[in-house]
């Protein structure tokens, strides 16, 4: 046997965050390299584009404000998906819940008159309630009939999109300015604290921390974690599994709905067809990147926000939305693979049995 043959790749179940971070950085660079080659082949100057992105996103105050505005919905939809992952379920419908949250907040904004702070609170409640309502049927179907929640939540995205599109171009259309694709301006606004960045950003930062604390330090959190790890054992231990599942799913919908409400009252100020900007689907990616850690959602959302922001800048440089979407997909694919590579390490052949026994 030669020396090379005695080396083997072995999978390790638990790896440190640092290894994963290193693998991600490498994959990110690899994806950028592939993207740069593709862009160069299409006649763009990748180096020029790269410096533009850095200058305009991280190097300026406006860039940072934009980053914060992107981060707000991404953290919340990412958290919504993470919340459900904690109990072993997938919420692919955060996009729809986002739409309905935005829809409910707009309804309050357009048709209820009152003092602004009270109305903002009402919008907040309406947004969260709208999101929770939108996941109610999938929740009951899952809890009482074991109907796959991935598909039911996903299908409702299209219904929500159509509904919002309908009201924004039809009954709620802005008749004063004559735009055809959005409602009138919602008069209640989340106050700003840093340029155009509003307090919704702070809410988005607090929410994952709060959920993380609840999960770790309360009895309820312990029961959720146990249910997620082993539903049968949880049931045997006397935990009302079905009730916990229902609360978690409704909470997840409410958080996604809240993201939609903040987008309307804080950033866009109107309801329009494309308001979700795929934040729901991107939330799934954020949650996977965060590997189930509520606080990790903030880091995952930051990565996603930087990519999206870069995409917006690339569009001003002549790239289409579609090209940016393709590039984002490529980066995500590389990231997913890199996460796995972090689990492998090179070891000598002899201690393999011991290592694999420990891993299994």
């Amino acid at each position, binding site marked *: 046997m030669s020396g090379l043959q005695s080396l083997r790749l*072995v*999978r390790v*179940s638990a790896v440190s965050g640092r290894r994963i971070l290193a693998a991600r950085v490498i994959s990110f660079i690899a994806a950028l390299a592939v993207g740069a080659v593709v862009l160069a082949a299409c006649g763009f100057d990748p180096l020029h584009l790269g410096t533009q992105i850095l200058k305009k996103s991280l190097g300026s105050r406006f860039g940072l404000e934009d980053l914060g505005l992107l981060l707000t919905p991404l953290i919340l939809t990412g958290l919504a998906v993470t919340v459900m992952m904690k109990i072993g379920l*997938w919420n692919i419908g955060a996009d729809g819940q986002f739409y309905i949250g935005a829809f409910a907040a707009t309804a309050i904004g357009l048709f209820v008159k009152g003092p602004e702070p009270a109305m903002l609170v009402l919008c907040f409640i309406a947004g969260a309630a709208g999101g929770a309502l939108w996941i109610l*049927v999938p929740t009951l*179907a899952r809890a*009482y*009939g*074991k*109907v*796959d929640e991935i*598909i*039911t939540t*996903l*299908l*409702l995205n*299209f*219904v929500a999109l*159509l*509904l919002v*599109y*309908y009201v924004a171009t*039809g009954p709620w259309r802005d008749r004063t300015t004559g735009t055809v694709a959005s409602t009138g301006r919602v008069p209640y606004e989340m106050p700003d604290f840093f340029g155009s960045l509003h307090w919704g950003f702070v809410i988005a930062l607090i929410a994952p921390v709060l959920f993380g604390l609840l999960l770790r330090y309360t009895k309820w959190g312990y029961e959720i974690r146990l249910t997620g790890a082993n539903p049968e054992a949880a049931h045997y231990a006397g935990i009302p599994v079905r009730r916990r599942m229902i609360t978690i799913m409704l909470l997840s919908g409410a958080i996604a709905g809240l993201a939609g409400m903040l987008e309307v009252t804080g950033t866009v100020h109107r309801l329009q067809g494309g308001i979700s900007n795929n934040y729901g*689907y991107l939330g*799934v*990616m954020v949650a*996977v*990147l965060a590997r189930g850690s509520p606080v990790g959602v903030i880091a995952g959302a930051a990565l996603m926000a930087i990519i999206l922001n870069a995409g917006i800048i690339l569009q001003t440089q002549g790239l*289409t939305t*579609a*090209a*940016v*979407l*393709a*590039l*984002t*997909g*490529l980066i*995500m*694919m590389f*990231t*997913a*693979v890199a*996460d*796995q*590579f972090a689990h492998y390490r090179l070891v000598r052949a002899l201690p*393999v049995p011991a290592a*694999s026994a420990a*891993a*299994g």
Partner: protein
Amino acid sequence: MELITGILTTAVLAGGVLALAALGEVLAERVGVFNLGVEGLMALGGVTGIIAVTLYPNPFFGFVMALLVGLGFGALFALATVVFRANQVLCGLALTMLGSGLAVTIGKSYSGMPAKATFEKIIVPYLSDLPIVGRAFFSQNILVYLIYLIIPAVISFMLFRTRHGMNVRAVGENPAAADSAGIPVTLIRFCYVTIGAALGAGAGAYLTLAFVPSWSDGVVAGRGWIAVALVIFAGYRPFGAVFGALLFGVITAIGYVGQARNWPISPTFLSMLPYLGTMLAMILPVFLWRRLRLGFTAPAGLGVPFFRDER
């Protein structure tokens, strides 16, 4: 009568897109891989079909080229999820973004142009004269027969009547046991995920060469997601997928007819029907016939990467 024939004819045509994509997803999920990239694959297949027939005006050429592109991107997805065992949900969503974005970018100059060659109707003598069902089932393009009969029959026979099919199902149900029995788990997963992806891209070509028939941004319109939903509704069975697609086609066709005949409902709400109909079709049977579920459970190994050294 005329109304029912019209609805059925459109339903068969519209359902074909979903049936082919769902058949591909059945293959992937039977071996334990959840492919959420169908939407992107369909977009890629659709644009490939249109470009191919522009270069050489033969619909079969377009369809085969779409299958090949599907094989290529399917191999990429399988490399990531089966060989590298990356997270399937993340890779699937990434593939949808990559495929949709790429298709729109490549297809920009072909947008809105009618397809240079399309699949023509084949009229089956005598049978097509049958009342009501004749025109719907026996006066369709050749892909319809392929999708509704031949492909599901081949897949069904392979899965449930051959030794190889038993191995394939074992890989999806219990990869560790299959591995102990000497079945090449990774190879089988890789092959069927790739073939399934090719069928997804083929469904895109069917959409742009037989159904619409042209390419435009957003022509796929969520059909890939519905195909994924149908697989679960179908209980992971090929003919179940075809039946589900036909049912979905009927709901879609009712919406079309409603728009054409100016029913007093907004077209937006008619467009919601397919999604709500699928939801209902998934939820109702569970509560009506609880026993029905027993034969419809997902492959036990679905979504779980297989690591030999962690057995």
